[in-house]
């Protein structure tokens, strides 16, 4: 039987303004996890009933550890940020389907936006071939070193120009005239939508990791849906981000909302 685990927190550090990195001892999860999957983190606060879905940033199968990188945006992530190494946290996972890694592709483009960047680290770690990582942030970048360690070329765009290219990540892709056989992407929906249009134009297959508000995280409540085409924009189904995703092919997604 599956169950929520009480995982030991090995580390929980501020790595940038309002962004924390948490390392968990979670043998079972690490053993099974794939890049792009997520976990449910549960709050201790009694008013906060729903699990918080957080992507797995890195998997250390040997030591049975996973790392998570999360931004403090509301009550739940605020609670997580107060936890100390040595304490425990309830966690369930791995959940969802990760990225479908296509080893036949020699040139990979990886596009991350803001707090959508973390799951791309494990992906880049596992990808073979050339890895061009494009990251967009409002102002402050995260995880650049992690990508470099795994042999990626990292290109950064910030909206306020405080680091790297001033502008958004699509503009940077265009400016660099980026070329690749496949794109893996995670970030805010407007970014994904724009990149998906660019990918289509350039005939590059693209996987996107979507976000949606969730209740169960395991496919039971049908809360977390996105529109996935059956045939075309008009003939679509509501699919579950938690169970059928979070990763989808960008051309399956109905982007128009």
């Amino acid at each position, binding site marked *: 039987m*599956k169950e929520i685990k009480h995982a030991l927190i090995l580390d929980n550090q501020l790595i940038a303004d309002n962004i924390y990195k948490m390392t968990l001892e979670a043998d079972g999860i690490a053993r099974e996890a794939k890049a792009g999957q997520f976990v449910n983190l549960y709050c201790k606060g009694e008013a906060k009933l729903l*699990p918080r879905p957080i992507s797995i940033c890195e998997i250390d199968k040997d030591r049975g550890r996973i790392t998570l990188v999360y931004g403090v945006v509301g009550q739940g992530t605020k609670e997580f940020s107060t936890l100390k190494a040595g304490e425990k946290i309830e966690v369930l996972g791995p959940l969802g389907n990760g990225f479908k890694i296509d080893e036949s592709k020699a040139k990979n483009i990886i596009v991350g936006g803001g707090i959508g960047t973390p799951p791309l680290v494990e992906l880049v770690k596992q990808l073979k071939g050339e890895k061009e990582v494009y990251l967009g942030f409002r102002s402050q970048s995260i995880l650049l070193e992690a990508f470099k360690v795994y042999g990626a070329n990292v290109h950064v765009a910030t909206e306020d120009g405080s680091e790297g290219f001033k502008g958004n990540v699509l503009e940077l892709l265009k400016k660099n005239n980026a070329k690749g056989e496949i794109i893996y992407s995670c970030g805010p929906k407007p970014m994904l939508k724009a990149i998906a249009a660019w990918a289509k134009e350039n005939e590059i297959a693209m996987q996107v990791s979507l976000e949606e508000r969730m209740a*169960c995280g395991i496919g039971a409540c049908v*809360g977390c849906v996105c529109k996935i085409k059956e045939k075309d924009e008009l003939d679509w189904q509501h699919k579950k981000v938690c169970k059928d995703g979070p990763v989808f092919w960008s051309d399956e997604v109905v982007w128009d909302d």
Partner: protein
Amino acid sequence: MIKEKHNLKVNIAGVELKNPVTTASGTFGSGREYGEFVDLNQLGAVTVKGVSSTPWKGNPAPRIAETYGGMLNSVGLQNPGVEEFIKNDIPFLRQYDTKIIVNVAGKSVSEYCEVVERLSHADIDLIELNISCPNVKEGGVTFGTDVKMAHKVTKEVKRYAKQPLIVKLSPNVTDITEIARAVVDGGADGISLINTLLGMAIDIHKRKPILANTVGGFSGPAVKPVALRMVYQVARAVSVPIIGMGGISTGEDAIEFILAGATAVAVGTANFRNPRATIDVLEGIKEYMVRYGIQSLDEIRGMI
């Protein structure tokens, strides 16, 4: 833990459940997902998500918002339709030694009848008529908030139901006993309550409602006082069995509902926080029975 002499069996309109714990429709899928966390054989019944005559897409996302001690949903009864349900889910559930309660959705009296007609030939144990979903409105008022409509839909549907018919009531009414009497008059063999309250949450940074649907169904521990009050009132107003729900997440909660008059209890939102909530509730009920030497829940049901 539980000794032989403690009898957990309950009877709902002639259908015997091995224990009083079932699931709240829409929170447990058709049992597959939570079946990986709990042994479905241990549940008195599994109440599946609402099914309609044809597939429904439901409402746009976001469909979920968290509130203080509760949550909102605006799923809007997304489901693959009764045919798919009968094909895929009944055979799955019949592998387990548990009763099957099927929640029925509809947008018109005739759609309700159509689904019930279809289900009456299927291998299920009880039908739960959902006239109370706040997320799908026809003509601005749901069947569950109007005495005449509630009576009428129950009466019509009853003609097609071969299994006992439970009607699930909405708490968004001035007088729940009036509606309860109307559906019992219409032929209901049992009553489920409460469905969700109508609620709302706003994202103050984006300055718009969190739910795409603006308002949604409010459930979870926060709503328990309203649910318990309504079960208490309805238990005094009618004599059919009641499946009580609304915020149940522990055995103690369940005992409160049974003391208020419920025959069975359903666990809903609690599953999202604790996938083993159904079993924890069941164990809690057993502990209470052992502690106070209660042989059968009949001894304490409705004694408040």
